[in-house]
């Protein structure tokens, strides 16, 4: 174990997965899994036990909010950053209520993504 935080990226868009991976590579994280739909996300979550997950909402098989609930049930300590085009306040509040620690609307800038991720990492480090 390298002492890095284990990261999983979930999004049905290949391009978005690549962009998130590229931008988060500067942090002290190890990418342990990527998934393109909700069902695959839960399977890989159980297999790899990531500490941090970036999670899309609109996905095939199972939507991200259902996945979020399942992930929190499996590991209440997991830090989930929702990254979604459903950027309205009500969806953001729902995600936070379900246990997400951060909410980033698409389209996002590299700066916004990194800033939100840094806040998430700080929470993880401080044991919040």
């Amino acid at each position, binding site marked *: 174990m390298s002492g890095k935080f284990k990261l999983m990226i979930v999004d049905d868009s290949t391009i978005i997965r690549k962009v998130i991976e590229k931008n988060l590579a500067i942090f002290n994280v190890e990418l342990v899994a990527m998934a393109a739909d909700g069902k695959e996300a839960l399977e890989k979550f159980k297999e790899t036990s990531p500490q941090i997950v970036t999670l899309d909402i609109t996905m095939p098989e199972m939507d991200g909010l259902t996945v979020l609930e399942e992930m929190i049930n499996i590991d209440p300590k997991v830090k989930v950053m929702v990254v979604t085009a459903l*950027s309205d306040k009500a969806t953001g509040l729902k995600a936070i209520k379900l246990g997400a620690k951060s909410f980033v609307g698409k389209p996002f800038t590299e700066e916004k993504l990194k800033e939100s991720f840094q806040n998430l990492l700080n929470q993880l480090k401080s044991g919040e």
Partner: protein
Amino acid sequence: MKETDLHFFIDSTVNYFEEITGYKPITGIPYLKGAEPVVLEYTGIIGISGKRKGSIYITASGEMLQTLAGIILGTKEVGSPEIKDLIGEVANTISGNVRQAFGTDFMISVPVVVEGKAKDIKTPDDIQSFVIPLTWQDHKSFLIVCLE
């Protein structure tokens, strides 16, 4: 659909391109879609359900999407899978963002992508479709909004 609702889609589209690339697209005057097809090389389609019903699609050239994907990924090596993926993601983001105006009852589907210049994209006959012409960095594309 009221014509004023089109502003939400125009704002969402302009915001997408500006946020991602730093360049705003120029939007043309919207018009009612007639019998003539409005289809370019790649099309991303989103179904709308809930309080409002219909569909939204954006259609663009491969050249435009290659340029856009290049900016997003920071590389010139962009293949057909990325281009197809991108048009779906653009459609998803533009549609998802208008929930800020229409509320959470505005439900969007996952994108369906059509590659190649189809004869046309079928939309419900009983709902008017509006065409919003877009020009981004000299590339032309069209956003079609077909909503109850």
